[in-house]
């Protein structure tokens, strides 16, 4: 493994945990996969589909998201929205995130 690959792997691992929080935070309004992807990328978090779609399915199976197929513009789309369980968990996740940020700030100086 080259240094670059190791760097990429480490960055991916760092981002992996953040992505869940980012996705949950953006789904208080229903979004379909592609619109969510654009919404996140507009705010600076560029994900590829291979990361986002499986994550959405996983969060749904964990009960943090709900999804529905809706037909519009002649095309069915799957809309995701945060579930009551997810809504309940989000503030606690935010709190933990803030704690991590200030802890790491202190650690990295």
């Amino acid at each position, binding site marked *: 493994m080259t240094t670059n690959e190791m760097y990429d792997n480490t960055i991916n691992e760092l981002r992996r945990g953040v992505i869940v929080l980012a996705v949950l935070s953006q789904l208080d309004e229903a979004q379909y996969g*592609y619109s969510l992807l654009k919404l996140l990328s507009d705010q600076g978090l560029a994900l590829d589909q*291979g990361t986002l*779609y*499986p994550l959405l*399915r996983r969060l749904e199976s964990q009960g943090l998201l709900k999804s529905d197929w809706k037909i519009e513009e002649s*095309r*069915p*789309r*799957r809309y995701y929205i945060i579930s009551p369980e997810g809504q309940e968990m989000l503030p606690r996740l935010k709190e933990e995130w803030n704690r991590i940020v200030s802890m790491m700030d202190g650690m990295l100086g």
Partner: protein
Amino acid sequence: MNLIERYVTEVGKYLPRRSRADIEAELRSTLEDMLEDRSQQAHRPVDEAMVTALLEEYGSPKKVAASYGHAQYLIGPRLYPTFMLVLQIVAFAVVLGLTIATAIAFVKTNMTPPEVLKTLGEFALNLLGGLIQAFGNVVLVFAILERVLPPSELEDKETWTPAELIKEPHPDEVKIGEMIAGIVFTMAFLLVFNFYPEIVGIWLTDNGALTQAAGLSEAFFRYLPFINISGLLTIALYIYLLRNRFWTAATRWTHIAIELIGIAIAYSMLQGPSLLKLFPMSTNTELQATLTQIFDRMVPFILLLVIILSGIEIVKTLVRLVRPAKTSLPFQK
């Protein structure tokens, strides 16, 4: 558009059937959304070059399917350590068995140097074949276990405390290693007697060639269906026990019933005609006669041993039924 359909179908091939249609539908709608977006940005209608570029970017179907993270294990990480342990035991048994058989052939016959070389060559070939076959059988058993055992099994130790390290095992708890070893050996036994019964018997070197001096008689095969039933029942019971982790009155009675079937088979074998038959040999006939006599006496001895061991198992199981364990279940608070 045809290309997108093909792409979606190709991705679907690598997805588990359960979620395939759903993932395919979502992928199709995403690709169409992306195409629409690109077409608007490029101010031209969707064309094949655009589709090709998009699919290339989206990645190979295999990679896309893999991103959905359905790890497809033949033998997963939770069973792997036990699998390796059983594999080592079985491999050791194969090597030991074949080495002893070859050593006996060396001692019993006076071989010329070319014959020695030939026997050694056959030993190497048999060893290779035996090891591959043993490996295949163990893999088969564990691949089945991987699919039969519920996902939480063997890893739901949430309430684990260091106290468990020194605690006596709960008397009703199923010993996983024992069950798995039982399944592997019962399967190996059934496979040999059903599919390779011709290798069972006494082997001698006849004029330098390894020849079978005695094998299983017709009488044996009349018992085979009953042996199979009892073996399959044993495997079924052990798998059930592995899933449930604790013995219950019902499983103990089933265990007793299966042991009784075993005793009945062994008893009627004892009463019936010889289970061995002789094969004609050109030389070594004297040795053949002596060995067969010894084995003919050994068979009843083995059958008696089976009856006694089964009897002990039944008594042990009955004791457990009469005197239920007093301690609380180790995983209950």
